């Protein structure tokens, strides 16, 4: 028995938040997010900001991997392009008034990422699955390599990285983490709603059709060329936005931040959270960022912060990260979203049989 699903008209059926529970959950969590900086300490706000930035990128990779079925192991590169474009365009247009700079620069960064996404996506028309995973991986290595080159160092800062500007929204300078939290959270919620909305449209349905069987989709009249590239562009665009926010958030960006580790983190967050589900990225990001952080805190608590043990923290975090990914693939391939679904379903049917 599923409650709260009475639909009296078509409009009600087509809404994004189509039942009371969802509305309650979404509005409730929005309220919580809004109140969060009022009582949280600096450390919690910092973690929340990091999660928000990663979340936007994972929502992006969800569009590509979760909904269109194209595996990418190189999305860290798009985040890098978003971040570096933000810095480069900010330096290029430094003559403009600071207040409107981010409003021009961030869309440009998203655009550049999306364009690169289309280029990287080109092999997806001929290759699938594994070959595509390696192609994207190769592309991401190339992008990172180019960023590190001395040739482009005047713009990118080369291997030592480059300082990032402080965002200024129409005169409001976001120079504290708490102010950045407002911007990041607003954008993260916005992107999640946009992604959810995308899959009610013609384009989103085409993506899902391609995921389920690309040849069948083509026979149904879906242009693979168009929609696969569009999926790449959208997902790269999301990652570009994430990179832009990352550039504004961190005082300095380095090429190493956008290496293989980031790409794997994105995919791992998606798998842990649940692929092809709107809330999957949210759960995934929370777990993937919180668990290593908890290890760090426990380690420093258990050993009294001694330096001798501190060097074991990073490898341990890495191992646990890998184990998380493997555990979910072996035991719960549909991710945390599946677990919450199960709990919600049985709660909904209580006291009747679960199932």
């Amino acid at each position, binding site marked *: 028995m599923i409650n709260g699903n009475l639909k009296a008209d078509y409009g009600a059926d087509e809404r994004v938040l189509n039942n009371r529970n969802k509305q309650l959950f979404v509005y409730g969590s929005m309220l919580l997010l809004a109140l969060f900086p009022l009582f949280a300490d600096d450390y919690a706000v910092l973690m929340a900001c990091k999660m928000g930035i990663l979340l936007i990128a994972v929502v992006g990779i969800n569009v590509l991997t979760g909904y269109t079925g194209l*595996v990418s*192991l190189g999305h860290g590169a798009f985040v890098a392009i978003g971040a570096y474009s933000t810095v480069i365009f900010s330096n290029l247009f430094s003559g403009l008034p600071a207040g409107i700079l981010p409003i021009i620069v961030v869309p440009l960064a998203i655009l550049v990422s999306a364009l690169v996404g289309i280029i990287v996506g*080109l*092999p997806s028309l*001929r*290759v699938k*699955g*594994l*070959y595509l*995973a*390696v*192609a994207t*991986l*190769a*592309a991401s*290595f*190339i992008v990172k*390599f180019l960023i590190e*080159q001395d040739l482009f160092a005047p713009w990118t800062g080369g291997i030592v990285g480059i300082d990032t500007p402080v965002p200024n929204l129409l005169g409001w300078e976001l120079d504290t983490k708490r102010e950045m939290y407002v911007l990041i959270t607003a954008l993260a919620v916005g992107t999640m709603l946009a992604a959810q909305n995308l899959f009610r449209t013609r384009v989103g349905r085409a993506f899902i059709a391609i995921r389920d*069987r690309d*040849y*069948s989709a083509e*026979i149904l009249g879906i242009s693979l060329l168009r929609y696969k590239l569009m999926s790449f562009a959208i997902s790269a665009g999301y990652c570009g936005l994430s990179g832009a926010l990352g550039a504004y958030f961190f005082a300095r960006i380095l090429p190493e931040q956008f290496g*293989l580790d980031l790409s*794997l983190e994105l*995919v*791992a967050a998606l*798998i842990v959270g649940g692929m092809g589900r709107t809330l999957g990225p949210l759960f995934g990001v929370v777990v993937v960022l919180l668990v290593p952080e908890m290890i760090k805190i426990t380690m420093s608590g258990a050993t009294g912060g001694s330096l001798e043990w501190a*060097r*074991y923290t*990073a*490898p*341990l*975090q*890495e*191992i*646990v*990260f*890998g*184990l*998380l*990914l*493997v555990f979910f*693939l*072996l035991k719960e*391939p549909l991710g945390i979203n599946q677990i919450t679904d199960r709990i919600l379903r049985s709660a909904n049917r209580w006291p009747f049989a679960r199932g």
Partner: protein
Amino acid sequence: MGQFIQFAINGLMSGAIYALIAVGIVSVYKATKVVNFAHGYLIMFGAYFYFTFAVIIPGQEWAPTWLASWKPDWMVEMREGLGMFSPLGAVLDWAANVPRIILGLVGAVLCNAVLGRVVERTLMRPLMGQSVFAMIMVTVGLISILSGSASLIWTADAAFVPHIAPNTPIRFELFGSMIFLFGADIVNMIIALLIFGGIVAMVKFTKSGVAIRATAEDQSTAYSMGISVPKIFSRAWVLASATGAVAGAILATRNGISPSLGLFGFSVLAIVLMGGLDSYVGCFIAAMSVGVLEAMTQWKLGGEWAEIVPYVAVLVVIIFRPHGLMGQKEVERI
């Protein structure tokens, strides 16, 4: 011209090592349809095992002295009176290391074989029959597990690792130009080619090789013909990690030991895809051509650019030939 030949030969030598690493990825793929993204990290473990058995254990106090440095009287006599750079001297220097090199290689191969078997049993076996995506992602998770474990286990600074063969410089003339090579590089190349050839011959001619090919063709049919598919799986993993150990030992002597050895696996993955995942011949051609291309890039553009040669090459090849140079086309039915 002289430099061209020199760089081409250097390229072929590193190409042979690429081929040796590629053979592990291809073997696992052929038997299990899983592309092992973590193969580079298995190689890194091989390198660290070699380091453990060839450097750390002989350096212990309880180890017999002949293990660390084997110097019988006749060798000391021969060594006396030889010049600094004489070829015989280099051979004798190497001979003193022979016990620990053998211990290192045997230990590395055995330990890595065990590691490969453990990975197969704990991570891959439960996923048998599941989607390929899940299996590949498990190997991606394995990357983090292996690289984390390596930095947890081997915290000591990596020191010098003994060369597998005497490292005498060799000079000779070819087409009127001087070529300059190191003995160890040549022996490494020969070892790599022998192992590569041995595995190809095994898959082609022996009974278990036929079983591997049958499993690659169709798992359930192979099962019903009495082939134990799980056994084939673990054999393929053991084979891949054992060859990986040799490759790791060679790489450790060439480039030194560091966690970045794992990244090497990705460029080999690119080479494997370039050659075609299920074709030994294609991979060999791809490995050799990437080796030569890298050497040429190093010569013309500088060492840094050589790093991305495999990736650029694989992208170019994939666009024109989606299944690699010699890979089999997948037939898809709706």
